[in-house]
């Protein structure tokens, strides 16, 4: 799309006058702080899953099938007698792992393609952007399901597919920012001094686009977690016995389970919703903190 309404940078965006200002602006955003706290709790849960869980998430107790929540099993047990709370805690680990690594992949690809495309211009830019549009044309969720199903549903493939299909928006964003940064005096000065291309990109252009990348990556994290959950929920993502929040909900596709054992599907569902909500809050806060001019969209 070549829409030309964007108000062209009137003055350079002064990002990070000091890191403290941005941090203070973030702290003023109460929902963002709430989101950050929630995320930290889930992250701790993921890291210390062994210590928190109290039960083995994989070994079922055959005398304790489909038990409602009790003192020994805080959130009850599933159809194989496994402790739901333990699976929830270990599920946090998988969901976080998949989300964070997939976003890392998307961010690296998107940033590199955007930087090169915006800085090089000309044929390179043209080729890279047409390629980006091609990837964007694939209906994302369908493409993710299809690819994961074809190459085999396991954690690694889920991460790679979500990561490899998720970078397009970021690449276009970075390209746009690079286009304007390229014309700055300090970049021209670096070019005149004979600073190598790679160094110009990494030292002079990248820091300028990084805040935008951070905000975009946060929003990507929300969608990556949702995608993994949906995929695993449909039984086409991470497979049993590994527990993720998504595949814990899979059992609830049958009406009797849905009706009679709400402890099986309510907790993981709430965890997904809470995590994604927290990520979105943090994203909002980051946007306001790093660049108030990015607007409220």
């Amino acid at each position, binding site marked *: 799309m070549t829409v*030309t309404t964007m108000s062209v940078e009137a003055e350079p965006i002064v990002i990070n006058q000091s890191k403290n200002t941005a941090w203070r602006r973030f702290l003023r955003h109460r929902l963002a702080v709430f989101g950050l706290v929630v995320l930290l709790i889930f992250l701790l849960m993921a890291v210390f899953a062994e210590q928190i869980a109290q039960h083995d998430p994989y070994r079922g107790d055959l005398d304790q099938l489909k038990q409602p929540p009790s003192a020994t099993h805080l959130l009850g047990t599933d159809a194989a007698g496994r402790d739901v709370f333990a699976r929830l805690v270990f599920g946090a680990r998988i969901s976080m792992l998949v989300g964070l690594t997939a976003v890392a992949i998307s961010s690296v690809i998107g940033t590199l393609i955007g930087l090169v495309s915006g800085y090089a211009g000309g044929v390179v830019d043209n080729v890279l952007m047409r390629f980006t549009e091609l990837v964007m044309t694939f209906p994302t969720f369908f493409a993710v399901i299809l690819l994961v199903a074809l190459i*085999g549903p396991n954690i690694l493939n889920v991460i790679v597919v979500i990561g490899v299909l998720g970078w397009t928006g970021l690449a276009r964003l970075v390209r746009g920012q690079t286009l304007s940064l390229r014309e700055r005096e300090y970049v021209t000065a670096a070019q005149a001094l004979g600073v190598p291309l790679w160094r110009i990109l990494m030292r002079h252009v990248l820091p300028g686009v990084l805040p935008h990348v951070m905000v975009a990556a946060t929003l990507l994290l929300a969608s990556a977690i949702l995608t993994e959950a949906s995929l695993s929920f*449909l039984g086409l993502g991470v497979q049993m016995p590994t527990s993720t929040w998504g595949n814990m909900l899979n059992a609830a596709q049958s*009406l009797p389970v849905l009706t009679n054992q709400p402890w099986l599907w309510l907790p993981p569902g709430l965890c997904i919703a809470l995590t*994604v909500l927290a990520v979105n809050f943090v994203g909002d806060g980051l946007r306001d903190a790093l660049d108030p001019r990015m607007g409220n969209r």
Partner: protein
Amino acid sequence: MTRYILKRLLLVGPMLLAISIITFLFINLAPGDPVLAMIRPEDRVVAEDLERLREGLGLNKPLYVRYALWLREALTGNFGFSYINGEPVLKRIGERIWPTVELMGAALVISTLMGAVLGILAALRIYSIWDYALSVLSLLGLSVPGFFLALVALYIFAAKLQVLPAFGMSSAAVGTQNPGLADHLRHLVLPAMVLSVELVASFMRYTRASMIEVLNADYITTARAKGLHERVVVLRHALRNAITPLITIIALRLPILVGGAIIIETMFQWPGMGLLAIQAIQQRDYPVLMGLTFIFSVLVLFSNLLADVLYAYADPRIRYQ
């Protein structure tokens, strides 16, 4: 403008060709054998049978020949034949289009109306408790996964209250009389509502932002300075300008709606293209998958184009080169 549209339309052909080649390669080079997926393990099948099946489906030919054959089938109009029941792919997809269009259409109508109304209310009462509550609610709507929302809706309305049907498009049993439109609409309520939640949230956010922008414009100040009634200012001057950008957003959301429809149709057993997609993936019905990828890509390409065109149409200040 016409030239711009023509230029974009010219790109559609090569784009679709590239997409079909990439999809074809991925589908056919991926591990997994459609023939093995077809047979039941309890049947005694020997290697010769498998070979015969492969030959019958044309799977023993080299890859480029198979692609050429697929392309010929695509251009002549039936997109090949399903591995599962031998029906033309276009027929199989064709009978699934209308339910999906119906479901997505209902969700779009609900979400556009609700999103616009709530967004305008939030903008008019900006920074009030209502605005605050709506913005938290909209973020919640964007964060709750559709399938979880569907489970909650099924739990409340179908399992506990038993006021709405859980699955399918009608309660007609095989061989009985068609139970009629009202019954059909009752089946539509839950999936359409669940599908629209995310859209309501996102449309609301856009409408609110755009309405706030418009309300701060000079011509609104002028209108107020003329002494016009606030109602007239809002309804006649602000509303039109605030709503137009929403058209673009709706067009841009269409492809994302496909993803939502896949999940929702599967959960509610709504016999549309999304349910077909999941079935075809499970059965490794490659021709149907190729056809679906093609149709979904066409939808993405044209809704992007539609978004650009509508945007320029709604706002004459936009120029495309």
